[in-house]
């Protein structure tokens, strides 16, 4: 082909996976070695859709799916936060309570004290950041394992939530306000939803083209054009179809779009910044990261702060969704749903592997199951048991994939 040897094609042992066929071959190889990516989640979603819609056709109706997405945003945001902590190989078991405290702060400041809601929101986020800072400091100073400190935090925060709410037990939030409309009714206008739907594909295509030119200039191999087109067009087609379907009912929730935008931003942080690289390094090999000059303690502080702040934000969204701040907020299955979502989406509990997308994909699975079971009129006792089993399965898949990667030498 070209007379100048490409840097990354010099070694004859590397099979150059060119074009669509090459992409498929590479994909099969990755699957075999336990690098499953998003495949299990997509299969899971399809399976869930088939099972639940055959049990109750309402499940797949556009209006129900819109409902599902409204519910997904709050837990999704909590889950996005816990991804940062899981990537370090740590855990935060208090995210549910944190979200409950945040909703209580919102209620008390906004309704009882008359503070404007944006300030109340900021106060809730700040409370989250402080909580995360405490967990990270306990770990940095005293080596207190995060599952212990956050378990203690779970109880302490629950106490704080009850204290804040006082005797009333629940505070109703004003119905006509922006947060409540955002949480309950606001959907994207039709034209805007279609416009937004083509952005991901267009962005992939544009950045793909840019990467191709830059790599060619740098004398590196160039990813195939056909793969790029198939990826971008495929993504566009799927999203457009979904948006069209949702628009047959109530439309695409603004809250869910907001969530997706934040996920995209965090994915950028994790994969395209030094900060994100440092997080993955600390999760992969803490001592190696330290010797490379990374300040492990600071990374921990940032991650725990982001985790608790996102949990607080999720709590505020959940309160908007319910139009109330109550004693029940953030209790029950919120905690484990958020952690399960991250793990189901492909973030490893062992640290060093995962992505922001995992929160998005995982929360869709969790909410779909939860929503489907509710439609079947199953009591929450059964729902808890089933979701517990789903979490267990997700962790088993994670462990097996990890073992398989180890035996195939892929970290």
């Amino acid at each position, binding site marked *: 082909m070209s007379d100048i040897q490409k840097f*990354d094609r010099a070694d004859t042992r590397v099979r150059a996976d060119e074009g669509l066929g090459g992409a498929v071959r590479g994909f099969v190889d990755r699957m075999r070695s336990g690098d499953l990516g998003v495949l299990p989640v997509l299969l899971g979603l399809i399976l869930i859709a088939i099972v639940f819609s055959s049990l109750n056709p309402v499940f797949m109706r556009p209006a129900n799916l819109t409902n599902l997405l409204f519910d997904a945003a709050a837990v999704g945001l909590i889950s996005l936060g816990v991804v940062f902590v899981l990537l370090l190989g740590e855990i935060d078991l208090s995210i549910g309570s944190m979200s409950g405290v945040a909703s209580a702060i919102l209620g008390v400041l906004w309704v009882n004290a008359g503070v404007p809601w944006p300030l109340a929101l900021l106060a809730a986020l700040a409370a989250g950041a402080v909580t995360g800072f405490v967990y990270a400091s306990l770990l940095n100073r005293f080596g207190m394992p995060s599952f212990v400190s956050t378990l203690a935090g779970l109880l302490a925060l629950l106490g704080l939530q009850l204290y804040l709410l006082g005797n009333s037990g629940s505070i109703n939030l004003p119905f006509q306000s922006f947060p409540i409309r955002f949480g309950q009714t606001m959907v994207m206008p039709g034209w805007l939803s279609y416009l937004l739907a083509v952005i991901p594909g267009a962005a992939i295509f544009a950045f793909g083209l840019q990467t191709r030119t830059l790599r060619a200039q740098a004398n590196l191999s160039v990813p195939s054009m056909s793969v790029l087109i198939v990826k971008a067009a495929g993504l566009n087609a799927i999203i457009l179809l979904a948006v069209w379907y949702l628009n047959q009912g109530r439309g695409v929730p603004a809250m869910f779009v907001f969530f997706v935008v934040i996920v995209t931003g965090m994915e950028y942080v994790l994969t395209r910044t030094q900060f994100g*690289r440092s997080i993955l390094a600390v999760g992969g090999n803490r001592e190696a990261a330290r010797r490379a000059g990374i300040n492990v303690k600071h990374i921990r502080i940032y991650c725990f702060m982001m985790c608790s702040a996102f949990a607080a934000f999720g709590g505020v969204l959940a309160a908007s969704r319910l139009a109330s701040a109550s004693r029940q907020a953030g209790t029950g299955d919120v905690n484990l749903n958020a952690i399960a979502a991250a793990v189901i989406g492909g973030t490893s509990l062992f640290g060093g592997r995962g992505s922001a997308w995992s929160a998005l994909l995982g929360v869709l699975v969790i909410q779909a199951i939860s929503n489907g079971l509710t439609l079947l009129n199953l009591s929450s006792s059964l729902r808890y048991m089933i979701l517990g089993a789903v979490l267990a399965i997700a962790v088993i898949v994670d462990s097996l994939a990890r073992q398989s990667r180890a035996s195939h030498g892929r970290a």
Partner: protein
Amino acid sequence: MTAADDATPILRLRGVTKRFGAVTALDSIDLDVHRGEVVALVGDNGAGKSTLVKILSGVHAKTEGSIEFMGEEVQIDTPSRAIELGISTVFQDLALCENLDVVANLFLGQEVNPWRLNEIEMEVRAWKLLGELAARIPSVREPIASLSGGQRQTVAICRSLLLEPEIIMLDEPTAALGVAQTAEVLNLVERVRDRGHGVILISHNMDDVRAVADRIVVLRLGRNNGTFGPEATHEELVAAITGGADNSVSRRARKSEAVPASAEGGEGA
């Protein structure tokens, strides 16, 4: 650069001591490294070589003693301080992140463009660095976990060269390398020296050590046990390392001399 500057060592250690609880791993070590000098650090297992390297790279804190860098006393209390000063290290355990790919490991902590990583520039520089070492790494986008021991060692060595350090410390860098690669690393050590940097090389291979070292510093049980020139004989070095003329290595050597048929000498350590 003045003559006086040239005379000041890059690194001057006086009375460096390290205790791990009851164990004194290093006892009052003195060591100088000058510009354009390769100092070999030899000693048996457990002599304290790696501990010394870790103190100089900010991984462990010294218990006592002073470290001067470029004529000024410094406290190397964190790894980032050592990197800042221009001390870079290839650790015996390599210290790589298995979950990250080769490029990410090479540039860890030194990424190009922190808020918008320039993957393409990093990849090109990675290929060039690896090329300088004649490294046989099929793809720099594979996680470290998929590389062999020797390939990992090459990555760790490349990593230490990335920042144009003043002094580079290699803790048994050729232990897992093949014949050609070992020669490349020794060539590289000479090139780094010729550029006016200092090198501390730890190795168990006396031939390699004598081939590139300007001075050979022997550690034994955590103490200085003599300094030799490259012309030192194998027997002298072994005696200093093991602490006596009569030891298993010299006995084996005498035995094989007694049987003339066996051409191979007893290569010990």
